[in-house]
């Protein structure tokens, strides 16, 4: 795929000592001293600019310049010039007042920079104007630093290497500082990561100090001086480039900010050609696979939870998470080591506590969260940040520390009716310096939070109501169809049979009572009580038989009951039989007691009766059960 220019070249510190000499064409500015430093190695925290520059593949251009006004007009702007070719890879351009080395430069102290198109300038250049804090009068001078970071400025050369080869890269620049102003003194130093330098352009005044190449100082350069230099050096640092990163930040007012990040990663260094031998890689990973990259570290906020790391075919098990109260670090390894030109894609996701990122301000809420990816060693070609706000948010506005493309979408998710508003921010050439906080302001009423629970409650409620209604409503279509009528009839018959059963059961209970009275009699010998019980039972049974007659006549008239009728009739007959037998037994026993005849004698007689009763009772119960089942 041709030259993959995926290294991010960072020009940090162009020390623009813009001497303000009278330049007749422009204003009368002169750059009195320009110190340029190209840095292509890991910078430690706090060194030079206070950025967490741990990216091996970025080249940093730091220029510090002193501007002097030699003209009479006060001047408040200084122009910076870049060739158009470079501008398309320009990731970051920043100017700040020079405060000496090692000093911390806060972001607020930076000078405003804007794109301008001054007249009469060469066409292939793009200009940026730095606004000075106060206009320079005649003879005044001002020192400031410019930081420019370029992605894709380093090129691997050769473009294809084998697994065993070391990776060489080429860096091209101009030895002279490209500026519309006259430069009095200019020096350039190029700092390289490793001491091995394949070749470099030798000009006059070129010195090499270990891994640092110094050009200059050159004096009294006219405006737009240009002298190309090429440095070819070894860099086994892997070029991790994300072609596209989509970050989705979803806010839930129930206490969570869910971040999901989709990465499409590629190793932007020299492409691997020929065999990949796992054996060589495992045996001598530093030699055979020096330029392969093995892992990335994501620095995430503290109290992050539910972290996952997966791709489209499942979880990726090679990751490690640790953290303390200040930060959480996630080390992720791709499924396979990435050699030059190899690609991979994955997704990481994590939840953050809402209270750390969402604040309220004068009735507005705002989300305050970092813009870039948590991975520090990554250059992102195209970053899309989507902020998904809760359903019902309004008055949305975004404040970002640098220009981004911005539009809005809606997203339908769990229990949404109208969809959630989504703010989409898009930026190309993102480097870790862009990992700054941005804010999304919106209005959201607390009552809207209750909408979803209420929807659920209502949903379940109506489900149950529907169930109840279904159970109690007659759903049949035709009220006159034969089947429907038959069913109605059948229902009636069933009710009648139920009644019959009830009556029989009550009869049986009455029999039991009689039996009980007999037992009492045998215990106490109280004949009168027994007789009373008998009387009561008689009355009850009479009533019951009346009831039974009514129901039976109904059953006989009903055609639907024809199947079951014989059984019912049998049941009734058996019951009557049983009743008689019980009565007979009762009278026998009572007679015996009254006449005081031998109790032994009576027991013999009763035993015969008792057996019949038991058998009958059994039959009645069987019948009851049978009918029950029908």
């Amino acid at each position: 795929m041709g030259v993959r220019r995926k290294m991010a070249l960072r020009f940090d510190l162009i020390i623009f000592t813009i001497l303000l000499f009278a330049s007749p064409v422009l204003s009368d500015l002169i750059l009195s001293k320009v110190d340029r430093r190209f840095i292509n190695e890991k910078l430690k925290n706090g060194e030079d600019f206070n950025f967490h520059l741990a990216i091996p593949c970025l080249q940093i251009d730091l220029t510090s310049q002193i501007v002097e006004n030699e003209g009479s007009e006060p001047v408040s702007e200084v122009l910076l010039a870049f060739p158009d070719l470079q501008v398309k890879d320009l990731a970051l351009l920043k100017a700040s007042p020079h405060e000496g080395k090692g000093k911390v430069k806060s972001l607020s102290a930076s000078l405003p920079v804007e794109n301008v198109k001054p007249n009469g300038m060469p066409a292939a250049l793009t200009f940026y104007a730095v606004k000075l804090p106060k206009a320079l009068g005649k003879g005044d001078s001002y020192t400031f630093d410019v930081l420019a970071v370029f992605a894709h400025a380093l090129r691997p050369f050769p473009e294809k290497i084998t697994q065993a080869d070391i990776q060489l890269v080429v860096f091209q620049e101009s030895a002279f500082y490209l500026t519309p102003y006259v430069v009095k003194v200019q020096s350039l130093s190029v700092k390289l990561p490793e001491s091995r330098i394949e070749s470099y352009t030798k000009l006059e005044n070129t010195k090499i100090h270990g891994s640092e190449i110094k050009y200059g100082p050159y004096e009294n350069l006219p405006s737009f001086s240009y002298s190309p230099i090429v440095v070819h050096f070894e860099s086994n640092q892997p070029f991790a480039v994300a072609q596209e990163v989509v970050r989705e930040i979803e806010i839930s007012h129930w206490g969570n900010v869910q971040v999901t990040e989709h990465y499409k990663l590629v190793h932007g260094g020299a492409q691997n050609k020929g065999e990949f031998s796992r054996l060589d890689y495992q045996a001598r990973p530093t030699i055979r696979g020096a330029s392969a990259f093995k892992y990335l570290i994501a620095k995430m906020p503290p109290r992050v939870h539910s972290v996952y790391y997966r791709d489209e075919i499942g979880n990726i098990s090679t990751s490690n998470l640790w953290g303390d109260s200040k930060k959480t670090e996630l080390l992720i390894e791709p499924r396979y080591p990435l050699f030059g030109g190899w690609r991979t894609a994955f997704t990481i996701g994590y939840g953050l506590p809402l209270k750390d990122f969402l604040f309220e301000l004068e009735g507005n809420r705002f989300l305050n969260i970092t813009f870039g990816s948590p991975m520090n060693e990554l250059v992102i070609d195209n970053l899309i940040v989507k902020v998904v706000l809760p359903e019902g948010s309004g008055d949305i506005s975004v404040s970002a520390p640098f220009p981004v493309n911005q539009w809005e979408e809606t997203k339908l998710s769990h229990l949404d009716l109208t969809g959630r508003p989504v703010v989409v921010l898009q930026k190309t050439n993102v480097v870790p310096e862009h990992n700054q906080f941005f804010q999304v302001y919106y209005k959201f009423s607390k009552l809207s939070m209750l909408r979803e629970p209420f929807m659920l409650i209502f949903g379940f409620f109506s489900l149950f109501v529907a169930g109840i209604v279904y159970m109690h409503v007659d759903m049949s279509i035709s009220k006159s169809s034969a089947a429907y009528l038959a069913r109605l009839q059948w229902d009636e018959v069933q009710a009648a049979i139920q009644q019959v059963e009830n009556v029989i059961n009550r009869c049986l209970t009455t029999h039991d009572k009689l039996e009980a009275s007999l037992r009492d009699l045998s215990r106490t010998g109280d004949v009168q009580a027994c007789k009373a019980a008998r009387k009561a039972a008689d009355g009850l049974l009479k009533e019951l038989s009346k009831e039974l007659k009514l129901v039976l006549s109904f059953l006989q008239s009903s055609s639907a009951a024809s199947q079951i009728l014989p059984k019912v009739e049998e049941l009734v007959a058996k019951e009557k039989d049983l009743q008689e037998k019980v009565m007979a037994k009762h009278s026998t026993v009572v007679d015996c007691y009254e006449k005081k005849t031998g109790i032994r004698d009576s027991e013999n007689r009763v035993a015969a009766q008792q057996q019949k009763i038991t058998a009958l009772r059994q039959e009645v119960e069987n019948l009851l059960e049978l009918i029950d089942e029908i």
Partner: protein
Amino acid sequence: MAAAAKAGEATLRHAFGNVLSFFILLLIGVLAFSIRLFSVIKYESVIHEFDPYFNYRVTQFLTKNGIYDFWNWFDDRTWYPLGRVIGGTVYPGLTLTAGTIWWLLNSLNIPLSVETVCVFTAPIFSAFASWATYLLTKEVKGAGAGLTAAALLAMVPSYISRSVAGSYDNEAVAIFALIITFYLYIKTLNTGSLFYATLNAIAYFYMVCSWGGYTFIINLIPMHVLLCIVTGRYSSRLYIAYAPLVVLGTLLAALVPVVGFNAVMTSEHFASFLVFIILHVVALVYYIKGILSPKMFKVAVTLVVSVGLVVCCAVIAILVALVASSPTKGWSGRSLSLLDPTYASKYIPIIASVSEHQPPTWPSYFMDINVLAFLVPAGIIACFLPLSDASSFVVLYIVTSVYFSGVMVRLMLVFAPAACIMSGIALSQAFDVFTRSIKFQLLRILGFSEADAGDGSSANVVPENDAVKVDKSEETIKERPSRKNKKKEKEQMEKAQAEKTSAKSKTEKRLLVLPMELSVIGLLLLVFMGAFYVVHCVWAAAEAYSAPSIVLTSYTHEGLHVFDDFREAYAWLRHNTEVDDKVASWWDYGYQTTAMANRTVIVDNNTWNNTHIATVGTAMSSPEKAAWEIFNSLDVKYVLVVFGGLVGYPSDDINKFLWMVRIGGGVFPHIKEPDYLRDGQYRIDSQATPTMLNCLMYKLSYYRFVETDGKGFDRVRRTEIGKKYFKLTHFEEVFTTHHWMVRIYKLKPSKNRIRGKMKKSKSRTSTPSSKRSGSRKKNPWQ
């Protein structure tokens, strides 16, 4: 008023019982679902194994392109260069089900991914299946047996093995469809309702959509109908249960593209039509019998039988001639291997090579159904007491499925529900007997009755009398169950005797009650057995059947070690090769490669074209140059082999290699199995034959393997490899995974022609088209 109260309480208790069984069923569903989540918890939410990946891919296509594109889908990413008509060759039930669930959820704004839906389809349907089992068993033997059977089915290991979360395979849905079809058949048989008959045909249609195993239904139900007719149980209900099923079911089945006219043309469906005719004849006979006097009827019978026999013989002769004229007798290979277990190993090595088509071993029965194996006979006995239409059906079901499960491991899955139903019946009956005995004995011991029940005069009256004395409400509670039990008692007593061979006096059936101690011990033993079953099932679900097989784990002294090599290789292929590159591998990995790596494969797990598979097998068994030619003629760019020698992964390609030789040799006779065997033994050490040591599979597996430890010790075969140092001339290694389990090679481009050699290689390397025809002699591809 007492009676009214009692009746009220009865209905209340009835309602209470319903609510109780509803909640028990709900819990059974939850159990069935959650016991299958071990794979998600222990591993991850991922599709398992091989076939599920294909189903997953089809589902993705369906959700993306819609149903009409799905029916017309011609898949050009597999079986290159032939392609495969997916819409017409796949059982669409599972895919459509999951697709519908996904669509429903998404239209309700629940944005679940297709993968999530696919992963959880199987557990959801196993909950459905256990509910269906409840319904079926309830129709056969009542609600108690139903609940027991449902609980047993919810966790039977055999079914778990095919339906853990992520096991997105046809069987997951098909078992539910199978049981619900049987339930509706029994329901129709019991009620004679045309409504259920129609539902039955629809359930059958769903089963046909889901799984090729539907032929089991369409043979079992006719068998049962025939059984009913033979035993004189013909009724109009039987007619309603069967005739609509055949007519509607066949029409519906023919709508499924993969079945189509097979529904009337193949022998698998023949039995259903034959029985359909017999049923009508019998129905006619019964009708005529009804309208004729007995004497007339006798005359008519002799007349019809003599004429009918002649006609029948003629028809059968024609049919036999027709069937016999086709080489496979109208049966498909898989069905034939069911009828004749030795058929596949004799004629179709590709069916025999699949491990799940082997007959099971005895331990696998114990593993898969555990204690159910002992309960099944008791259940069968219970089904004969008394024998009803429904219980004869389940007896027939278990007898046939036992046979089928004995032929193929895979069909253990059909056997499992039958075993659960039988065991459910057995358990619930046994519990019934024991608890009832205990209850009666208890009452007797408490000694309320003054009518000293020593002679057991009124075991049924006693509790009632006692209850009357104690309390009204108590009476109702005691009385009712005892009455309920009575019917069962009759059946149980004999069964209990048969089972326990109790030496109790057999005075009167319904009064037969086991002694207290025996019942308590029996009950405890049953509970203990149930507990053992549960423990075993949980163990099986957690340990044995949850591994997704694309991720392997092992426990070492350092802790858990994960082998994720397959996905590493597939991810590499997906991201680092061209979209249209063709990848050759043994067919096992075809589905995974198309689904996970999204690359075109030559052969895959749908083994529809034996010749094509044989071509790949031949290439793998050929020396490097011949293999290169075969692969090159197939446009292959990468060759993928699975190699377990470094970490000891036993199911790698070297162990499968003999099947490649056999299948390749079956089509291309120049590959001969004996060439790869030394004295009938398969070995890869220094004793191995030169053919073996020079074949492509050997070389790709062991390329530079010796450099890992200096000796080349293969941990799977437990031996040093035979040929240690060699170079590849036509292939180059492009990727090997972390544990060397997957190795991917690239075909080197053909060399520029040198003038002197032009003549020699002319036929081979001119244009691709002439290459193919020119190399016909050497190249088995064509």
